[in-house]
């Protein structure tokens, strides 16, 4: 068994998010709204060696099977992530994340005068993906364009 696989124990049922860019693991948890509040067992491994000079983050969520709707929002912060569904200790399904047409919550609108930043209203940010190549997002409310190319990449790593 490879080193990375020894770091966290095997799970019988659940979801393994692998190949998260180094340093983005906690943001992935935030984007998925996983804060341990539901009592489920979640293990997070940061800076797991991967290949010769690279590192990655891994998250294992027990007894939860994440659907596309949940994991596709990771496309911007962890574009290389794989989503592995584990059933009875075996890999039952492997998916890549793919960019959805809209992204809720993850990004704050950069416009301080946007209603989503008002603080008084019960409102979540919603960004429409208007350019998939350069990753341009547009606030559904105020129309401000958010350039997030680069946000998903880990800090420039050697090799």
């Amino acid at each position, binding site marked *: 068994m490879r080193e990375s696989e020894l770091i966290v124990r095997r799970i019988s049922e659940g979801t393994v998010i692998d190949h998260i860019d180094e340093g983005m693991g906690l943001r992935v948890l935030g984007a998925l709204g996983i804060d341990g509040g539901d009592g489920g067992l979640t293990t997070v491994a940061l800076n797991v060696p991967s290949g010769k000079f690279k590192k990655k983050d891994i998250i294992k969520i027990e007894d939860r099977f994440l659907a596309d709707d949940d994991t596709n929002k990771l496309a911007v912060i962890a574009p290389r992530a794989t989503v592995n569904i584990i059933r009875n200790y075996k890999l039952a399904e492997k998916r890549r994340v793919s960019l959805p047409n809209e992204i809720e919550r993850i990004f704050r609108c950069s416009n301080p005068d946007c209603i989503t930043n008002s603080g008084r209203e019960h409102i979540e940010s919603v960004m429409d993906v208007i350019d998939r190549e350069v990753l341009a997002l547009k606030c559904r409310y*105020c129309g401000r364009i958010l350039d997030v190319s680069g946000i998903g990449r880990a800090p420039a790593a050697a090799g």
Partner: protein
Amino acid sequence: MAANSFFGRDVISVRDLDRRGLEDVFGAAERVMAMPAAERREVARGRTLGYLFYEPSTRTRLSFQAAMASLGGSSLGISDVASSSASKGESLADTVRTLSIYADALVLRHPLDGSSRFAAEVSGKPVINGGSGTEEHPTQAVQDLFTMRREKGRIDGLTVGIIGDLKYGRTVYSLLRALGNYDVKVHLASPESLRIRSDSVYDIRKRLDFTESEQMDDRVGELDVLYVTRIQKERFPDEEEYIRVKGSYVVGLDVLRRMKKGAIILHPLPRLDEISPELDGTEQARYFRQAEYGMHVRAALLALILREEGV
């Protein structure tokens, strides 16, 4: 008549109005204007418009109220937020929900960008944006284009000059977006510090041919429409700078003399010193007529939103 696409719909952004939609409103405005008063009073008889103004307004609110009254409907609402529970910290969402219980359609003015779209999500009734943040004032843009169409007979082919505060004036952004549906030439002139925000016109650039400079002087003779906006004192760091800049954007008789025959001057109002009152009686000055059209255009919009059969 084809189905009325405005029925029950929100009017949040001028982006939601394509050329076809704009023409539908213009057509309805023409019909409403031509109606005998008694017939016009049947259009929205017994219906109620709710208004909610978090910022001061004279014309937008009054013209909506007058429009609703001319259709036989009534208006109720809040024009001074300090006198409502919003001053106690009630959210916009709850205030909108409440008003939408008592009214058939809502008009909202609010300082934050995106406020109208949010209001539309929580409101049980159609919401019309009466000015939100710094970028949207869709009914003003419809009014401006309708005025050009009425007073110049067409919109396509016009050369439009826009001067003044282009950075903070939300009417300008909505106007440019709306003009993007037509084949027009636009010249913008403003002090360097009040230039149009490039990130806000990012998508307009593809659809609209416009130039930018600090002076309109050498272009005045080409214009069919000179659209003047107010230079707001609060936008300047000091009084001296304001006085220096302000003077160069005042339209007086000298400018008027250099305009071509048949050219017109518009202004969204309120005006301060940027158009000299001696122009008011001239043939070129059409800004009060513009304000009058504002009422008819809003009546048309209300009629379309409230009545499936349109008007």
